[in-house]
């Protein structure tokens, strides 16, 4: 019975959520702390930190999956919202450097050598952690509200929306690159020392940040799960399948699009906020057109329209990159591009689709998205 098949799929996903969650939350940090450094079980501080980064990316991917995978609206500007979150947290961290900076000034280093004498007004809220935290969440969401309102209300959709968001990513990149923006220009914000009094160079701080990222990812996943399982989640899928029909069922599509766009922006901001203290730097190169496109590839590879797929794709592609760039640094863009082409043409449901197809082969047809009706873009 299909109903049972869906239920089985659900309980299987819940089970794997707990298993994988416990693995990342408890087992991985323990393997970092307990085994001797030369043991094959040992996970180095470097690896742990790297996983933390990947899991932050997974939060970003979840947001894109919500708007693209479920609602069919392709946004090529998620990197911008990630950047807003990252920069807000970065500004807080920059102000925490204090006298430890290279020039020994209370101002961040880049301000000293760009001859900024006083802290610009818009930096003030980031003097304390609450300001940085709220900024990292609210700035992307507020911006997405305004941008999304203008775009969705004017019924900009499909390819046009994708192009506009790409233009947004490019514009943001240009603005953040300028020294006059007072955000460190091309060099961005870096050289952070401490977060809430914890030294960022300390492995235990990084371990804490890693655990925090796992928890944030779990919370984000549950939030998305809840949205997707609600009736509003069905409306999102309905919009993807047949937007004009949704109007005649009495719903206003643009309001739903705006809602998920803002949620996705919030998730991107959260991801950016977690990324900065773990990676230790944020520059315009990490928020422009290319990083935004990469998110699309993660989701496509993992399997769009499945939340697990977004997480899986983000982690797998980034892990693949870290391994492969060791051996073929120059070939990575080609590998990534090739991967995208292969997935889109041969495995439209991504890794998750492949796994489900294999495990369901003799049981029931998979209830995954079938290529039908209007697809994204």
């Amino acid at each position: 019975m299909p109903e049972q098949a869906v239920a089985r799929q659900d309980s299987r996903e819940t089970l794997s959520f707990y298993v994988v969650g416990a693995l990342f939350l408890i087992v991985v940090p323990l393997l970092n702390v307990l085994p001797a450094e030369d043991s094959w079980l040992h996970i180095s501080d470097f690896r742990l930190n790297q996983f933390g980064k990947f899991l932050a990316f997974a939060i970003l991917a979840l947001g894109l999956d919500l708007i693209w995978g479920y609602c069919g609206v392709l946004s090529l500007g998620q990197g911008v919202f990630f950047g807003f979150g990252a920069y807000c947290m970065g500004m807080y961290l920059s102000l925490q450097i204090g006298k430890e900076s290279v020039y020994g000034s209370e101002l961040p280093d880049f301000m000293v050598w760009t001859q900024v004498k006083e802290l610009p007004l818009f930096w003030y809220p980031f003097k304390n952690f609450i300001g940085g935290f709220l900024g990292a969440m609210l700035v992307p969401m507020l911006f997405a509200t305004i941008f999304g309102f203008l775009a969705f209300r004017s019924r900009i959709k499909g390819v046009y929306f994708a192009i506009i968001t790409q233009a947004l990513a490019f514009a943001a990149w240009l603005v953040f690159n300028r020294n006059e923006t007072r955000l460190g220009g091309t060099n961005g914000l870096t050289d952070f020392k401490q977060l809430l009094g914890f030294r960022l160079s300390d492995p235990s701080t990084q371990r804490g940040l890693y655990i925090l990222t796992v928890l944030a990812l779990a919370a984000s996943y549950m939030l998305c799960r809840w949205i997707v399982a609600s009736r509003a989640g069905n409306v999102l899928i309905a919009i993807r399948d047949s937007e004009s029909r949704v109007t005649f069922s009495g719903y206003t599509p643009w309001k739903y699009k705006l809602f998920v766009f803002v949620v996705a922006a919030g998730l991107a901001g959260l991801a950016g906020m977690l990324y900065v203290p773990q990676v230790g730097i944020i520059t315009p190169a990490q928020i422009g057109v290319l990083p935004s496109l990469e998110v699309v590839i993660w989701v496509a590879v993992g399997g769009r329209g499945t939340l697990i797929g977004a997480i899986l794709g983000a982690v797998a592609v980034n892990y693949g990159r870290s391994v492969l760039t060791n051996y073929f640094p120059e070939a990575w863009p080609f590998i990534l591009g090739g991967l995208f082409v292969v997935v889109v043409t041969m495995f439209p449901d991504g890794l998750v689709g492949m796994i489900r197809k294999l495990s369901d082969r003799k049981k029931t047809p998979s209830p995954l998205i079938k290529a039908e009706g209007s697809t994204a873009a």
Partner: protein
Amino acid sequence: MTDGDLILNCENVVVDYDGFKALNNCNFSVHYNELRVVIGPNGAGKTTLLDVICGKTNPASGKVIFEKGVNLVGKNAEDITKLGVGRKFQAPSIYGNLSVWQNLDLSVKRASKGVFPTLMGRSSPAERERIDETLGTIGLSDYAYDRAGSLSHGQKQWLEIGMVILQDPLLLLVDEPVAGMSDKETEQTGRLLTALSEKQAIVVIEHDMDFVRQIARIVTVLAEGTVICEGTVEKVQADDHVREIYLGRAKVAH
């Protein structure tokens, strides 16, 4: 006809597509609980007429009075849906990646269809019962949890009719429901529409004359954007003007 019991009254409606008048001073009215069939050659403006009523197309001039004096012209589709006009499109227009049940659940008439009420909303037992009942009416009880995209063409058409019924429309607009259906499916659709017309007014656009004979009480003939004849099937088929329009063209009268 008295004006008092009209559910819909279109007055002098003009739709102009860059000089081509899809509707040209069209006057068309429907009574409560009436099952009206609209026929006419290709390009007569039948679908455009439904588009105007449900808010998909804005007329250049004219009035569309719904119920007691509400002018639908200028209102958007969502608001017209809320007032009680349901539209079944020509091509089956359902949500292929949702289950049949979910398709119906989304369509149920509810106080608010805003984002947050919908996010929090759970189907009440009464609503579930209503959906199950509708599943029975449209003959899809056995397919409730199937992906709607996997249904046959005829079943998709019924599903969409079911979706429209659940909006509790006072007026149901149905565009060529039996195109592409088998004879048996056509007959079932006819019975379904006849049964529904006991509760609401229905306007059906159709080409299939056998089907028209099965369901119609009054037929309206549309040509070149205006109503040229209205009456029983026999009267319409005997009309010289109608014969002239269809001559050598369609399969209408025989």
